[in-house]
């Protein structure tokens, strides 16, 4: 550090340019604040560069690839006998998407007067940070700061990610060739999404999960369809199984696993993907010098305004406790920015929607039936299967159902969940309904366009009221 360096002064400094950090930066720019956004790698963070977007691009590709096999049923004959997949070309296509999105963010930052600085930032005190760029060091003095450094894959000590045989989610999305076999440690949503995608591309996939089922955080009835489908795709699912050791032997990964039922065995595959959770990037940013405290797991506790224990320092996104999801990060980013801008903003909703791009997709918002019952509600549930929906039949996507959870006392919606084609887009109606404190009648009485999958919500709502049209009401 140069002694006597001159600090650049700014109203707000943001560390991390992911969906949380850049949303905050743009909003602050709109509110007329001077903003410095420090990003050590690429704008867009995990979400854009190594998470949501690349994984969804891969999943979409895998769907297209697999769909070709189904076309025969509809009478389409492909001239080529065997479809092949060139993951190298796919990488270029993906790079095109992410770079377009990154440019978009950079442009928006610029237009809103945000100064983007490339470098690694750390707090020097509670009003200064230092930024290191290629050996250079610059200090910034701020009025307020937002910590948005996100998270990285958690890797247990007995495994070493080498990027070639043993992968984390990031390196798995950078493969140049479709692996012939892949074992995945962890049956959470990232493992399931990527596992099913690779299975569709022809990889022999094994998923090893410690809990007694995959997607243990999601209501069991929603997961069933996915489990069944995964098996159809040839995915080998080993639940209640733990990995004890991993080693690379002759260009293959040997995973030593054990379970009560099967005892000890060795799973051999070309590659292994470790995806058992993510940990916040809060260790190397000098939080102690700023006086910001972290919890046991490295998360920074914040209030509804996203303030840390140091009132002029905010934290958002994956660095804070709660579901590590991009939309939560963005919402918190906007709220933190507005609070700094003097507006009465707050993250005051428990309704964090979730989407899982499995096959079929799962999406939901609010309480599951079990959660609602645990909280002491008397609950009514309405369900409508896609197999009774015209559009689902016409597009050959009949798996899944829509489910609405209702407070029996006043018919207020408590939760809306769906497993099925396009659930990720359809959940928007659920989020709106819950946020507007709608009653189940509100959904039932709305005209839903026909033929669409949205009719599923309407019929599920009518089922609660005992008068669904397209199923027998019991």
């Amino acid at each position: 550090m140069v002694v006597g360096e001159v600090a650049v002064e700014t109203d707000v400094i943001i560390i991390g340019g992911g969906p949380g950090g850049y949303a905050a930066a743009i909003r602050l720019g709109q509110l007329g604040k001077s903003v410095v956004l420090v990003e050590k790698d690429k704008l867009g963070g995990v979400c854009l560069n190594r998470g949501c977007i690349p994984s969804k691009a891969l999943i979409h590709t895998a769907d297209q690839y697999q769909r070709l096999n189904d076309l025969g049923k509809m009478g389409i004959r492909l001239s080529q006998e065997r479809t092949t997949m060139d993951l190298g070309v796919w990488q270029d296509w993906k790079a095109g998407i992410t770079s377009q999105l990154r440019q978009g963010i950079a442009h928006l930052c610029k237009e809103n007067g945000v100064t983007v600085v490339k470098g690694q930032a750390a707090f020097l005190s509670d009003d200064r940070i230092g930024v290191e760029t290629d050996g250079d060091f610059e200090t910034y003095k701020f009025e307020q700061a937002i910590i948005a450094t996100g998270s990285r894959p958690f890797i247990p000590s007995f495994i070493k990610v080498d990027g070639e045989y043993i992968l984390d989610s990031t390196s798995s999305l950078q493969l140049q060739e479709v692996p012939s076999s892949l074992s995945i440690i962890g049956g959470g949503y990232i493992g399931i999404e990527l596992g099913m995608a690779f299975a569709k591309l022809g990889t022999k996939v094994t998923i090893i999960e410690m809990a007694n089922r995959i997607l243990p955080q999601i209501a069991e009835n929603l997961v069933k369809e996915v489990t069944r489908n995964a098996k159809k795709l040839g995915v080998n699912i080993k639940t209640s199984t733990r990995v004890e050791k991993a080693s690379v032997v002759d260009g293959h990964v040997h995973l030593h696993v054990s379970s009560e039922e099967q005892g000890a065995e060795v799973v051999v595959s070309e590659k292994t993907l470790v995806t058992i959770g993510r940990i916040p990037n809060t260790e190397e940013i000098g939080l102690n010098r700023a006086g910001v405290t972290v919890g046991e797991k490295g998360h920074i506790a914040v209030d509804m305004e996203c303030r840390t224990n140091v009132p002029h320092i905010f934290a958002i996104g994956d660095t804070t406790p709660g579901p590590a999801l991009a939309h939560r990060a963005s919402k918190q980013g906007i709220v933190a920015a507005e609070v700094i801008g003097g507006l009465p903003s707050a993250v005051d909703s428990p309704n964090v929607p979730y989407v899982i791009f499995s096959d079929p997709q799962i999406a939901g918002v609010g309480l599951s039936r079990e959660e609602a019952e645990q909280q002491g509600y008397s609950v009514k549930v309405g369900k409508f299967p896609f197999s009774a929906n015209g559009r689902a039949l016409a597009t050959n996507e009949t798996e899944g159902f829509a489910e609405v959870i209702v407070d029996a006392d006043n018919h207020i919606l408590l939760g809306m969940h769906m497993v099925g084609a396009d659930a990720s887009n359809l959940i928007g109606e659920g989020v709106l309904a819950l946020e507007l404190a709608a009653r189940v009648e509100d959904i039932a009485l709305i005209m839903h366009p026909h033929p669409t999958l949205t009719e599923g919500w309407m019929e599920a709502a009518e089922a609660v009221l005992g008068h669904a049209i397209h199923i027998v009401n019991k």
Partner: protein
Amino acid sequence: MMEFKLPDVGEGMHEGEIIQWLIKEGEAVKQDQPIVEVQTDKVNAELTAPAAGVVKKIFFSEGDIVEVGTTIFTIQEENDVSVPDKKMIDEEIQGVQSVDVKVNAEHITTKQHVVRALATPFVRQLAREMKVDIEKVKGSGPAGRITESDLKQFKENNSITLNAKHHDNKMAQEMALMKGAIQAKGMGNEWEERIPLKGIRKKIAEHMVKSVSTIPHVTHVDELEMDQLKEFKNQLKEYSDDKDIKLTFLPFFVKAIVIALKEFKTLNASIDEKTNEIILKNYYHIGIATNTEEGLIVPVIKHADQKTIFQLADEIRQLAAQAREGKLSIDQITGSTFTISNVGPIGGMHATPIINYPEAAILALHKMEHRMVVRDLEGVIRLMMNMSLSFDHRLIDGVTAVHFTNRIKELLENPIRLVVEMR
């Protein structure tokens, strides 16, 4: 259990000092019974019990500075069927959350749900803007949904819990709210800024509109020659220094005005519109409207007619110091019968001051400066000061007003006469 949080008794206030607890822990209280005296930016406010019950816990001692929104005491309500208090629910959520985190950092969970007030995101936002705790509002909408009008209703009802010391005086409450900085909410763009008209600015605005739309204002301007008074004041300097009193012009103005008010009674009066009566006041409480950094406040000198110049000087100094430190009580800023707007130190020649409703007149005193004037057909330099008198034309004729200012002029230009008339 009901938590009582320190309310923002004047929008924009951030903290208050606990001056005195009027009850003890464990004591039973009635609804609206005074519980605690709190000193805020400029006034003392007595906060009263939101409900009948037993005061369970007091969290702060006298002398503590407490931030707005902090729970200062809890009340076990009379018919409390032991609803778990919010804190406990909060802790429960916390518990659930931290367990989740332990289980799996990659989790997606929906387990943060609690029974919460039913309201749309917009209504929630509105509640924050209005500084209303939405969880306390009863919804009148379908299935208990909280509507915009529920919020407004709640806000109105709740401001009653702030019992200013002078219930009888609506003005007192309004003035109590006129404190704290006006918080600019930067919502505009770089070319313009939009600040919601609320808080003390709004009160001032309403007050002004009421004054101007009720009272037909006429403003009359005259100028005074101050050389003699200045000389007189200078002569008193040694004496006042001995008594350790900083003598300004203001006590002399107050004195001259009081003398004139006694002679022109309709200027120390008000009209009761309800009963159609003129109220002539035989007490002389002079408000001194002062622009402070915190906004407009009007400290009042009570019974100004019964005080000596030095007493007035001392009192003015004290009031000013208290105003700066935000230590004025509601008592000290209400109840004036006539107001002086002392804009002189800032500058200006004329003004059309707006009467401090429901008074009958207001006198603005302008900058004192040396000006060329004509005396005995010769141009001479004199220390001059303008004054602008706005008066209620329903009550006071132009002639009376001019006589009134003439009398003030006479007294101030010839301090010996002032002394002779003083009681």
